[in-house]
């Protein structure tokens, strides 16, 4: 494929957030008829670029040229009008509206020149687009009723509807099955052959080597390498991305593995997961890997008693137990650090002290009144163990950095002295330094005789930290690997829904 003229020319893009330099003098070029893979770890600045290119963020410095014309995007519509369309990572859909309306929201065609929305046109054109992608979704069904994969397809449909010249796909395949990914690749090639410029963001090297013509690697907000995909190997890309050896980021401590602590048998939920069985041993870090939306978090939540509608049994130390609420789970020695800190973990407007003792309020209130002295004792203890950086223990949690917020949440649960600690994406969205601290701390936990379940979408994290890795796909366990067997290729293949075997 011979690439055409330069469609998008970005020069010297910088963006500063409080405390973080998200982008530092980044320049990129995308030609018509080419797929450029943008790679980098979480937090490397990929999403910031996407948000600047789609007019959601304003850059502090730098210029954007489209087909030679300098552009300034102060609103998302500006970028849209300039011919840039992005399929965002977070599924940005309207659940209570129809598929057709979702595809055209914000840019609905109208009847003639009047003010009225052309519903017939919307549904006809949506159906055409979905047909072109060869997917069987009714344009009149509510998005609420779609599966995770179908929602991502909806995202692609939105970009197609817009007939954009530059299409940004931010991990479009993250939760698609192999068949759906193949499908997506056909569509991407189709777009490329139509002369569009495509920025393709993906963590999956297989896809990058399959589809991309060029690559650009970001690390800590800087462009650290670019070139033709044909001239690079996967190892070279990984080295560029991580910029350090795996051992530094994942200080795995070897701990003797003891008896079975937790056994989960045949956990099944109506729509979220099916027949989940596994065991967890003392001193073990058990990795749960899977694509976003593969049901990992849902399984953990049901073990912890957050979700009740499920069947299956649970036992600890060989004795069957029943857990129907988080407080029962805590009594049995379980702790869950949820994925979304802001929504489920820390209570941001409260102080570190108040957050840290939230799970312990009963124990700290001997006569029905909360003892401030005991509260402070627990907080100091945990703060020191986790080396939380704060001005004082009564500081509000929302004033802390992401990494320190995460430590507060972990400290809260650790203070309950659990036997089993479930960490759901504990390092999502925090910087490399804090990441290493959380990893080190996981080592300490197992050294103290706890058992840890690590749920993560980061392959390297699971491979680096876990003793055993369970892979989930579409709500089912589809593979289990020991530390030695766990090659990246094998795990990714299983996680993306390919059948086992060659």
């Amino acid at each position: 494929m011979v690439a055409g003229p330069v469609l998008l020319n970005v020069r010297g893009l910088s963006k500063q957030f409080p405390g973080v330099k998200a982008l530092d003098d980044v320049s990129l070029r995308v030609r018509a008829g080419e797929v450029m893979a943008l790679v980098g770890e979480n937090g490397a600045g990929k999403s910031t670029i996407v948000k600047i290119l789609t007019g959601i963020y304003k850059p502090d410095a730098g210029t954007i040229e489209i087909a030679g014309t300098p552009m300034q995007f102060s609103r998302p519509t500006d970028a849209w009008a300039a011919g840039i369309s992005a399929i965002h990572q977070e599924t940005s859909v309207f659940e209570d509206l129809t598929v057709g309306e979702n595809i055209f929201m914000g840019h609905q065609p109208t009847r003639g020149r009047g003010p009225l929305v052309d519903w017939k046109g919307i549904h006809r054109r949506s159906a055409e687009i979905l047909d072109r992608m060869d997917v069987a979704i009714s344009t009149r069904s509510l998005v609420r009723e779609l599966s995770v994969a179908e929602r991502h397809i909806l995202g692609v449909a939105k970009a197609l509807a817009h007939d954009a010249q530059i299409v940004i796909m931010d991990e479009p395949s993250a939760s698609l099955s192999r068949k759906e990914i193949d499908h997506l690749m056909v569509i991407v090639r189709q777009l490329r052959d139509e002369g569009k410029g495509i920025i393709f963001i993906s963590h999956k090297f297989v896809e990058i080597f399959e589809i991309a013509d060029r690559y650009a690697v970001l690390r800590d907000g800087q462009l650290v390498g670019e070139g033709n995909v044909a001239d690079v190997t996967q190892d070279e890309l990984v080295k560029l991305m991580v910029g350090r050896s795996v051992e530094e980021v994942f200080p795995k401590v070897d701990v003797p593995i003891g008896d079975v602590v937790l056994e989960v048998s045949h956990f099944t939920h109506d729509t979220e997961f099916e027949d989940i069985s596994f065991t967890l041993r003392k001193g073990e870090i058990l990795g749960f890997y899977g694509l976003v939306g593969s049901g990992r978090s849902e399984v953990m939540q049901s073990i912890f008693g957050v979700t009740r509608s499920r069947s299956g049994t649970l036992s600890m130390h060989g004795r069957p137990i029943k857990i129907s609420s988080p407080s029962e789970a805590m009594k049995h020695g379980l702790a869950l650090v949820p994925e979304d800190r802001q929504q489920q973990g820390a209570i941001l407007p409260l102080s570190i002290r108040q957050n840290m003792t939230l799970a312990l309020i009963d124990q700290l209130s001997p006569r029905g009144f909360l003892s401030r002295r005991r509260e402070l004792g627990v907080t100091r203890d945990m703060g020191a163990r986790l080396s939380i950086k704060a001005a004082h223990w009564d500081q509000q949690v929302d004033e802390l950095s992401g990494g320190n917020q995460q430590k507060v949440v972990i400290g809260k649960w650790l203070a309950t002295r659990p036997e089993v600690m479930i960490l759901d994406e504990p390092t999502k969205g925090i910087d490399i330094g804090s990441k290493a601290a959380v990893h080190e701390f996981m080592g300490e936990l197992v050294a103290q005789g706890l058992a840890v379940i690590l749920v993560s979408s980061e392959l390297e994290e699971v491979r680096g930290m876990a003793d055993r890795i369970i892979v989930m796909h579409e709500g089912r366990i589809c593979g289990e690997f020991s530390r030695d067997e766990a090659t990246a290729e094998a795990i990714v293949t299983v996680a993306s829904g390919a059948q086992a075997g060659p």
Partner: protein
Amino acid sequence: MNPAALLATVTGRREPALALLIVLLLVLIGLRAPFFITLDSFEGVLTDTSILMMLAVAEMLVILTRGIDLSLAANVALTGMAMALLSQAYPDLPVIAYVVGAMLFGAGLGAFNGFFVAVVGLPPIVVTLGTLSMFRGLVFVLSGGAWVNKHEMSVTYQTFPMNRFLGLPHLLWIAIIVIPLMWVFMRHTKAGRSLYAIGGNPQAARYVGVPVAARLFMAYALAGLIAGLSGYLWTARFAIAYTEIAIGLELVVIAACVIGGVSIAGGVGTIPGAVLGALFLGIIANALPVMGWSPFWKQAISGAIILVAVVVNSRSERRKGKIIVRRAEEHPR
């Protein structure tokens, strides 16, 4: 399972279920008081409920965007008083002056809310709670605490709502015009649809280029416009303006929305739903005296109905969980 929930499950949609429930209610009332089920009586109930129906539509615009407007009834009172005083000062003005004046005045009050919510970014409940007191206070300031009585208003002012055109009172005609207009606006215009987007997923709305602040401002201003119009109609129909008119009505209006299936969480609701919700409450209010029950029952009954409606809403809206497990039979591809 209560009848409303059962119906909602059977029909799968709120509006037909609510319509059926209203018919059922009418039948029950008719069994005890047959004269309630006559065209005359229907016309009376509809006319009586016209203002509530329009206000429910106004409130829905705001609730859809995850907001709430507690100041609508205060807007009715303030605009009503302003127009009554206008009629007292200039008795020769034509009716159209009051109608247009009330809409502009009310829209101005709504825009005031809209400014603080959409531009400054304050929480709607705080803003409109503040303006609720402010507007009520201004009614007092404007009138000096005095009432504007029937004999002080011009004749054109006070007779317009109940004068008839093609056999129906103007008040009812106005509702008959405003409600379908709003339905078209909410169902068939980009601006109307954008309110659904904002309430459903504000972040995503921004991403697809919905001018969120401008649309929020519009929702509050438009709600204010309808409230202002209702203010004129109210004072003219009852031929009196004083500080306490429509006091507490904001809660009835919100109740009508909730009963009509408008989700307090935003993003869900239809004009027919809100109107039927208002009609439901209106019928009950009108039927109570007919049934020989004290009007004080009205509040208790509407309170109970709101609770039922909230339960029905939350049950039908409850997430059924994500769909992750792919079952062969569900995906015949």
